[in-house]
């Protein structure tokens, strides 16, 4: 394996490309490719990008907020903020997700452990706040730091980052009904309590992301760090050897239906986002390790056993590019990896998942975090904020959403919103919305009420 992935093409920073006509395709096709497999689907062009945004003291109202950006090229408001709802206070807004019927959006705060629920069906351009779940630690038996929400049939899976006892990384997966009723807590396995799982090397009990592959009845979870680290100033933490030891080194494969951990893989360097391949016979998933700067593959081998292995470096690990988010194309051929450290996106050909090849890299900004792509792979969106206390300082602290088209060889900018100039805050997680998900009757009701 080479020290870094070979490049096939030169970088190309093309001119702005105006998007063509909408492509409407009936039938069950997904939108952005990292959504839960149980969710209702968007057909065609996404109309909105919902951005869960951290408030910044002294900037605008200083509050965490849900920002709606118009993403429809045919709209006169294309590329503009069309709605914003402040939830009051700063909760370390981080990730969220839709319910399986796509009526509601759950948005979580890593610090307060509150989950804000919005209704999006009635007016997709203006999500309506419904309620907040504000008793998370007590209800769950001590899990804190809800890291987003993942749709299951009729319920939500909330992977967490920490616990209320010592605020370290020991944590759990939690389930709620779609109505917000607490259902169950599943603690990650540890060395002291493996819960029946086989352990490669160690079981740290840490969590981060959790994704299901329904046809194999498996769930895969990854690991990050606890509240005491993610709420600490990054510079201070980086100088603290004890703090730097407290990062996840594991991924856990679960029997999804029984919610039982089966295997704990040793994946050092904080494996973060997980993306299962989409193909019917593609029994594998990718993750990137933020501190290790490696691309990892978790796969079912030809004996039906699950394995985990590093398949390549992301950038020069010694330069700490910090890969933080990944997005896999619908045809499983291309992986976009956003790197917070150098602000670049690296585009990797993963047609052969065991032998990935770098095909393009491009600077998005001075810092970049989340990446979301459309199902057809033609449009990508990036946001900038990682964590309030970890974002860069000074001029490097750009805060944006940027939209691009991807033509197979280069990313061409379409629009950008400066969240600092707009006095909105630090943009983080993105979710797509479309009025076409919902019935013509609902749209007629909305039109009539205007």
């Amino acid at each position: 394996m080479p020290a870094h992935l070979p490049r096939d093409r030169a970088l190309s920073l093309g001119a702005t490309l105006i998007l063509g006509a909408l492509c409407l395709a009936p039938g069950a096709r997904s939108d952005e490719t990292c959504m839960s497999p149980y969710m209702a689907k968007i057909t065609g062009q996404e109309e909105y990008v919902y951005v869960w945004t951290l408030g910044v003291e002294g900037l605008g109202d200083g509050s965490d907020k849900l920002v709606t950006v118009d993403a429809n090229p045919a709209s006169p408001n294309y590329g503009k903020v069309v709605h914003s709802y402040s939830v009051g206070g700063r909760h370390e807004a981080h990730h969220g997700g839709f319910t399986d019927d796509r009526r509601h959006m759950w948005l979580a705060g890593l610090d307060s452990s509150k989950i804000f629920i919005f209704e999006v069906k009635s007016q997709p351009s203006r999500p309506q706040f419904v309620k907040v779940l504000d008793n998370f630690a007590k209800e769950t038996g001590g899990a804190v730091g809800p890291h987003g929400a993942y749709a299951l049939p009729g319920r939500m899976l909330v992977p967490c980052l920490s616990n209320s006892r010592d605020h370290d990384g020991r944590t759990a997966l939690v389930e709620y009904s779609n109505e917000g009723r607490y259902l169950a807590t599943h603690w990650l396995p540890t060395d002291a309590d493996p819960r029946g799982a086989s352990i490669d090397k160690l079981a740290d009990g840490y969590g981060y992301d959790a994704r299901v592959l329904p046809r194999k009845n498996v769930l895969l979870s990854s690991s990050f760090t606890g509240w005491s680290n993610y709420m600490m100033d990054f510079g201070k933490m980086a100088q603290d050897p004890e703090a730097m030891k407290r990062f996840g080194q594991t991924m856990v494969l679960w029997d999804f239906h029984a919610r039982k951990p089966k295997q704990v893989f040793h994946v050092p360097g904080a494996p973060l986002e997980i993306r299962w391949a989409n193909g019917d016979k593609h029994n594998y998933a990718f993750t990137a390790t933020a501190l290790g700067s490696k691309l990892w593959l978790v796969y079912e081998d030809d004996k039906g056993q699950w394995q985990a292995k590093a398949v390549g470096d992301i950038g020069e690990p010694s330069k700490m590019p910090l890969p933080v988010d990944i997005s896999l194309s619908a045809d499983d051929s291309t992986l976009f990896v956003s790197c917070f450290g150098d602000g670049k996106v690296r585009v990797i050909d993963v047609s052969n998942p065991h032998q990935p090849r770098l095909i393009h890299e491009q600077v998005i900004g001075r810092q970049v975090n989340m990446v979301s792509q459309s199902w057809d792979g033609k449009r990508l969106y990036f946001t900038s904020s990682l964590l309030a206390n970890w974002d860069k300082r000074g001029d490097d602290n750009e805060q944006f959403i940027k939209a691009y088209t991807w033509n197979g060889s280069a990313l061409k900018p379409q629009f950008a919103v400066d969240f600092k100039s707009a006095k909105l805050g630090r943009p983080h997680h993105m979710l797509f919305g479309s009025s076409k998900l919902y019935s013509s009757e609902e749209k007629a009701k909305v039109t009539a009420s205007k």
Partner: protein
Amino acid sequence: MKLLSPALATASVFIGLTLGPVACGKEGEASVPSRPELALPRSTGFDYVPPEPGTYTLPVIRNAADGNVLDTSGKSASLRHLTQGRITVLSFIYTRCASANACPRATGMLKQVHRLSEQDAALADALRLVTLSFDPVHDTPERMRHYAAWSQTKKAAAEWCFLTTPSQEALAPILTAYDQEVDRRANMNDPLGPYFHPVRVYLIDREGRIRNIYSFGTLDPRLVVTDVRTLLLEEKQRVAENR
């Protein structure tokens, strides 16, 4: 996946049922294997071995709601009455649905569970299947009687009730209580059917509490029957603890 016409979609999945007091099927003969569901082959969509019953728990999600429903003879009934007393698998469908991964798939799964109950008297005794239409205008009791005719079997099996509602007004609170979204397509003559909806099938215990919800990706009859057995083991344990 090739789309089926509504008639073909429904024709592909059913055997009939015998009428009873609420027009449900009848139950119980001596059975053979302990877990006949394990004889069902793995498939691309369900490529795993199901967990052992009783090795996991099924939390209570919420109480199953009541509602005014009609059986295939047009007789009025309480939905709650039909979701208590036995372990119930409740599926919301409409017969005009031609989306292969939606209602036909759900009903096909119930059919497989029904067939499995032919081989297991204890399962047949404990289980009730309920198919409830959310299209009361088209899915009249007569229409549901036709739909149910395909589910007839020559062997004793679990009860299987086919229901509709007298009106949209009677249906609406049921859908709300079960959190079952139903939307009209812009084109009501769409070949897939006039409605689109998330597929939801509910597992309800004898006390009328929803214990699991299945959808596209989890409509595996082996898992559903495993869950039923898990609830039966839970009941047994409760009885033992109360002695």
